[in-house]
């Protein structure tokens, strides 16, 4: 394992800020893996820590393919994690909304530009990304729709689902979109959680990456074949909203199969304990996402169901 400085800068009060990268194997720049970009992405950093341990073991065993190099960057934003902030510690900007970045611009823009320049020649880019809604979701792989994406490659992770869909307004300033434009096949690997540690889905994410690296001939590793991924378009995800605000009493967990009309959760009046509303499935399917806040606003998305799919 070789440790390198990806980016460094001085700060006003905290001394030098250094982003480290760790490379395993030597040779062709094969795969780059990026972890937490925000201060609340504990699960994503945890996954990197597990992956780092595994890659170190594989390297010690001589199981990194000859002439292949893997770069792992566990976190770009550890100060925000230390300060319990989600975005960049000094100006609330978001590294994953700063790409392609500007080497002469503000700090997050400089980090984005420096990172992109460093990893532009890797064949594959993998980012452990947090789901945009707060809660638990089924682990999945997502590719940005740039016209250069390859869904068949995404299947090689062996995750339960591969998610495709139209780009959202902010996608064009993310790492993965810009990596794709530079010619790197880039994948977003989503685990079940963000702010809490979930060992099972963390290990699934690690296994999926090792499986992909094996299948691309970058490592030699005997692993389970994983899932034959089901590819779904985001348009197949039906949003179920809370008609009322209050305490959220969850009755159905993520990854459960549900029937149309089934009660998924209850909204409880915080003043008198009465059930203000029942959250009802509007379609048959499998629960892809469920929110995990103790209380909810009116009209927020509390469930997403993969429409008309069965186990």
């Amino acid at each position, binding site marked *: 394992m070789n440790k390198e400085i990806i980016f460094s800068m001085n700060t*006003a009060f905290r001394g030098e800020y250094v982003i480290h990268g760790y490379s395993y194997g030597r040779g062709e720049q094969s795969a780059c893996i990026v972890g937490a970009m925000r201060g609340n992405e504990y699960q994503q950093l945890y996954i990197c820590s597990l992956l780092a341990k595994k890659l170190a073991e594989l390297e010690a065993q001589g199981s990194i393919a000859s002439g292949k190099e893997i770069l792992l960057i566990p976190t770009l934003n550890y100060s925000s994690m230390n300060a319990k902030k989600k975005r960049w510690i000094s100006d609330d900007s978001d590294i994953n909304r700063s790409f392609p970045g500007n080497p002469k611009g*503000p*700090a997050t823009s*400089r980090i984005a530009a420096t990172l992109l320049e460093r990893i532009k020649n890797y064949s594959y880019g993998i980012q452990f990304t947090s789901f945009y809604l707060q809660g638990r979701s089924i682990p999945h792989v997502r590719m940005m729709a740039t016209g250069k994406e390859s869904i068949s490659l995404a299947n090689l992770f062996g995750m339960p689902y591969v998610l495709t869909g139209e780009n959202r*307004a902010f996608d064009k300033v993310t790492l993965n979109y810009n990596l794709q434009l530079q010619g790197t096949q880039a994948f977003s690997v989503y685990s079940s959680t963000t702010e809490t540690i979930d060992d099972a889905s963390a290990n699934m994410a690690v296994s999926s990456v090792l499986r992909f690296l094996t299948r691309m001939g970058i490592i030699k590793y005997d692993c389970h074949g994983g899932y034959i991924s089901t590819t779904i378009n985001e348009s197949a995800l039906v949003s179920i909203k809370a008609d009322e605000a*209050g305490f959220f009493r969850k009755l159905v967990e993520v990854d459960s199969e549900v029937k149309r009309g089934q009660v998924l959760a209850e909204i409880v009046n915080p003043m008198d304990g009465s059930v203000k509303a029942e959250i009802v499935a509007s379609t048959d399917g499998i629960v892809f996402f469920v929110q995990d806040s103790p209380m909810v*606003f009116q009209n927020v*998305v509390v469930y997403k169901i993969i429409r008309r799919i069965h186990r």
Partner: protein
Amino acid sequence: MIETVVSVDLMVEEELKIKKNRLAPDFLTGYEKRICLVSGLYGDELQGQYICYEVIKRIKHSFDKLRGIVDVYPSLNPMGLDSRIREIPGSDMDMNVIFPGSKSGALGEYTASCIFDDISGADVCIDLHSSNLYIQEMPQVRINNDRVNELLPQAKKLGLDMVWIHPSTSVLNGSLAYSLNGVGVNTMVIESGGAYKINQEYCNKIVDGLFVLMKSIGVWAGKTEDIKESRVVYDKDIKYINAESSGIFIPNVNIYANVKAGDKIGTIVNVITGSEEEIVYASDNGMICSIRDYPVIEEGSLIARILGGDANE
């Protein structure tokens, strides 16, 4: 008439209500022009609060001069304004990236959709912003280059210090202005001052310009102030000066200062060693149109923008 544009139950006891004040002549013909003034997308930007108040006050004072419909939305992010948080509290979402929103989306996207629908169909919309916590801005209008023909004549009516024309490719397509322009509402963004403060001088200048604009589109028939001609600038006319050190910034110049290349703009100091880390110099001749307000900086922080070229001529 004060109307509720969107109402959403919050978790405990409260409702999130976004309101507008519709000012219209007593007898409508159905052919009136409609202008929308929106403010408070970001909870730390307060310039629009004074501007909305002053516009409504002046219209009510000379109500018989009103010829069209003026819809004023002072606080699009009321929870953010109350809690001094820039984004939507709770979701931590930047409200100005989620337009046109979605009726099936979360709280922010849902409210954005209701706001967007309510404004759609207007002839003109002005999105009133302040700068953020870090930078002071002189009053200016910002428009996209793909709508110059429609927007520039109206932007000039506002008579602010500059009209800054951005490449549309550099603007996130989830902003309110971008989205409204996409459905034919001539939408311009006004920036001025800084966060958490109200600069009455800037605000009154903007209000004067708004009445000139309203008069030009047939919404207002009352007296208006004389306004000056705006300088029209493109990205190439604006020079950015970013810090190459971290520390505390001590400025040497104020906004509107005329500088020459090589003039000292300020100093970045290291507090614990008592030393100067960097002396920041002007890169070009011109006028300071933005200057760092928040003194703590890090490498890359924006220190100033210089409106170069013919700015001083």
